[in-house]
């Protein structure tokens, strides 16, 4: 069963109690163009979490999520062009990624018991080589990729599209702005605010804190 979500969801209680999510970078990330961005994204999220007492950090995992159950990493991060598939709790999950788009996908795998929903695993897929029209079209800079990665990490900790904030990296209508060089590319939110550097507004902080308290 797959559906579009409408609110923040807590992780399974033992994971929530640990205040930590383990994350596995697939082979598409660990040796490719996203390797440094992925590492930086984890560091940036953890830094933001520590500075703002978000209640959760990421730690790197050496094993992918167990396809049949709760073992292995909590979260898997992949970069893809085309269809990428995962198996979680015996269910196949597919993401059809446009490898050059400016987008990100997060799948939250949840257990549902009565009225109680809990996230048990999460899978993030980013485009392999996102591009921007800088006249001509070219690969977007790592700064924009960093914003995409950290935005998706926030979904992995449980926030939904309904939790998008108007005023920070978790904005629901982010707009890429091409720079003269890839390193000058930015994501614009709420008018003139541009990222990186990454920042969080109180609305997003509160949503994460409430989901992990």
């Amino acid at each position: 069963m797959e559906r579009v979500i409408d609110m923040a969801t807590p992780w399974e209680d033992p994971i929530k109690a640990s205040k930590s999510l383990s994350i596995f970078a697939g082979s598409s990330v660990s040796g490719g163009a996203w390797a440094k961005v992925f590492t930086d994204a984890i560091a940036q999220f953890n830094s933001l979490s520590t500075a703002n007492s978000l209640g959760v950090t990421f730690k790197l995992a050496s094993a992918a999520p167990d396809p049949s159950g709760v073992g292995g990493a909590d979260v898997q991060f992949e970069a893809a062009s085309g269809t990428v598939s995962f198996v979680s709790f015996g269910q196949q999950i597919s993401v059809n990624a446009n490898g050059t788009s400016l987008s990100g996908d997060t799948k939250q795998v949840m257990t549902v018991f009565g009225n109680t929903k809990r996230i048990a695993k999460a899978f993030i897929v980013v485009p392999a080589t996102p591009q921007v029209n800088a006249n001509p079209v070219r690969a977007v800079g790592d700064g924009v990729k960093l914003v995409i990665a950290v935005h998706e990490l926030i979904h992995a900790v449980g926030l939904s599209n309904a939790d998008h904030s108007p005023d920070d990296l978790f904005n629901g209508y982010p707009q890429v702005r091409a720079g003269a060089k890839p390193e000058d590319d930015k994501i614009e939110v709420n008018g003139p605010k541009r990222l990186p550097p990454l920042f969080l507004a109180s609305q997003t902080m509160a949503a994460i804190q409430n989901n992990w308290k």
Partner: protein
Amino acid sequence: MPGTVGTHVQKIQAAVIKLDGTAIEPSELALGRYGHSTAAAVLQYKQKRGIVNRSYQSKADNIVGKMTIAALDQELVDREQTTCVVVESITCRFDGTGN
């Protein structure tokens, strides 16, 4: 039993958190240590279910014995059999078209 450390303690901690949502101190979870918050969680679990060995006690204690293990196992099996898995999808675009 209070003071014990090991993976068997971590399994007990995971079970009572999953079944009752009880808070256990992160330091006890990380080490698998049966500290005061684990003991309190076990006591609360047993009190809620009336797990008392009437042959030698009149009220619940904070020790995991055969009766408690059996209750935890049965509840976890029941929970597993009535739990379903759903996948929820989130797609975000960063080109100004919205999410």
